């Protein structure tokens, strides 16, 4: 059998998917941040609300921040009603996204296993499975022998430091090709007449009284009827300009890939206890994510000891990985909120909408938050799916506490 050429089944890169727009003097809506969330919001503003006098301003290049740095895992098996609702809404949109965008995004519903290694893990996992079922999310508890059937390379021996006692399984979960997702949204937004403006950093805001009326940028001042912030780890750099305090802390979150390998890993495996999450990308590289570096950081790089610990965990769980070589490591900047849930919606300023705090989980929400934020901007009130995620929940106490509760590797 001749070896399969890695990447042979991927489509060719097109020459150009969008105009490289110059900024105009003003727009109805300016979205700050040309990553997945910003581009998806632009797409749904045009598609669902007919709002096309829109600019997406990006300080670097499109989808070059966390959209280029995540581990592409998509799932909706969160514990709390509020979280599973928004992630499940996103997952349903993912399921129709190739058709909607008319662009391949290589969405592969290969399932995700969240491993349990302790009795407390088992109890929490079973509880989450039952909560998921009540919320209409596909979820099941699987025993170690079933884990072995779903993913034969997982070490299910009882003789390891953190034995696999079982797992939760969400069959509809999976991965997508992150660049294609961004390009698909960008192409659609561009076709609708939306300006995607790269190399355009916001340096300040124009305000009249309590209303935001535009953004000052490195390419001049751009007037805006409404402004939405989709800047992930750099959100507080923007909100500090307006004197709005937002309770997020930015951390480096590292990930890495191996060289290209034959297909060995048929699903997605996450483990909170030993802290690694792994899938195999379409081209063949093993994609692994770590936990955040402890300190606040905006440097898009982290400490190597975090990678070492992550590799130790990966090799313990997947002995076959011991011979794989590390190709590349990098970090994104994730904005983590006190309850590990996003902060979305209205702000103390009229015409300014916030979308941040997604922490380590923003990619999977991309179409869901784009849909909900577009609605929020168009109607000047929160979409029902983001209504629980207000900024003032930290005053009222109505937190959505997903820290450690949702199989999330925070």
């Amino acid at each position, binding site marked *: 059998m001749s070896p399969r050429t890695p990447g042979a089944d991927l489509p060719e890169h097109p020459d150009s998917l969008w105009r490289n727009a110059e900024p105009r003097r003003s727009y109805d809506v300016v979205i700050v941040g040309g990553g997945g969330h910003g581009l998806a919001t632009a797409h749904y503003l045009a598609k669902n609300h007919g709002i096309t006098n829109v600019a997406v301003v990006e300080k670097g290049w499109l989808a070059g921040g966390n959209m280029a740095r995540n581990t592409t895992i998509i799932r909706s098996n969160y514990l709390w009603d509020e979280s599973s609702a928004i992630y499940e809404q996103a997952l349903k949109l993912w399921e129709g996204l190739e058709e909607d965008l008319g662009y391949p995004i290589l969405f592969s519903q290969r399932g995700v296993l969240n491993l349990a290694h302790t009795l407390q893990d088992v109890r929490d996992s079973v509880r989450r499975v039952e909560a998921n079922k009540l919320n209409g999310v596909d979820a099941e508890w699987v025993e170690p022998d079933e884990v072995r059937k779903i993913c034969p390379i997982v070490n299910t021996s009882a003789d390891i430091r953190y034995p696999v006692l079982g797992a939760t399984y969400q069959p509809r979960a999976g991965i997508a090709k992150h660049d294609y997702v961004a390009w698909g949204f960008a192409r659609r937004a561009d076709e609708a007449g939306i300006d995607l403006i790269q190399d355009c950093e916001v340096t300040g805001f124009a305000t009249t009284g309590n209303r935001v009326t535009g953004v000052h940028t490195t390419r001049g001042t751009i007037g805006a009827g409404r402004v939405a912030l989709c800047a992930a780890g*750099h959100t*507080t*750099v923007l909100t*500090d300009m307006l004197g709005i*305090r*937002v*309770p*997020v*802390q*930015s951390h480096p979150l590292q990930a890495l890939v191996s060289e290209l390998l034959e297909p060995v890993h048929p699903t997605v495996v996450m483990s909170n206890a030993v802290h690694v999450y792994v899938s195999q990308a379409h081209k063949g590289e093993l994609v692994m994510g770590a936990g955040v570096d*402890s*300190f*606040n*950081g*905006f*440097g898009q790089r982290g*400490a*190597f*000891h975090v990678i070492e610990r992550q590799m130790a965990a990966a090799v313990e769980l997947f002995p076959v990985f011991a011979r794989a070589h590390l190709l590349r490591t990098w970090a994104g900047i994730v*904005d983590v909120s*006190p309850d590990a849930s996003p902060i979305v919606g209205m702000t103390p300023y009229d015409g300014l909408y916030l979308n941040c705090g997604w922490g380590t989980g923003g990619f999977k929400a991309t179409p869901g938050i784009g849909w909900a934020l577009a609605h929020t901007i168009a109607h000047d009130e929160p979409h029902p799916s983001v209504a629980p995620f207000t900024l003032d929940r*930290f*005053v*009222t*106490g109505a937190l959505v506490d997903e820290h450690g509760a949702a199989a999330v590797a925070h």
Partner: protein
Amino acid sequence: MQLIACPWCGPREEVEFSYGGQAHVPYPDAPGELSDEEWAHYVFFRDNPKGRFAERWNHSAGCRRWFNAIRDTATYRFERVYRLDDARPVTS
């Protein structure tokens, strides 16, 4: 690995330390008089600057003592370490 200069032990590897977040956040003087919003800001809200940040570190696998540092969150460079009972140094 990055070396962090513990004020008591000198330069040690980063793995020996744990992070304590923003420094100089005093417990409220009159906690009974705080509004919900003021409590929220004390409990949940911390600065998150890109650049110089005064923060707490603990030499947890060494002398186990806390200290403060001025560190640049963009470059990760430690500019100053100082004792908890020192005032925040003036940095240019």
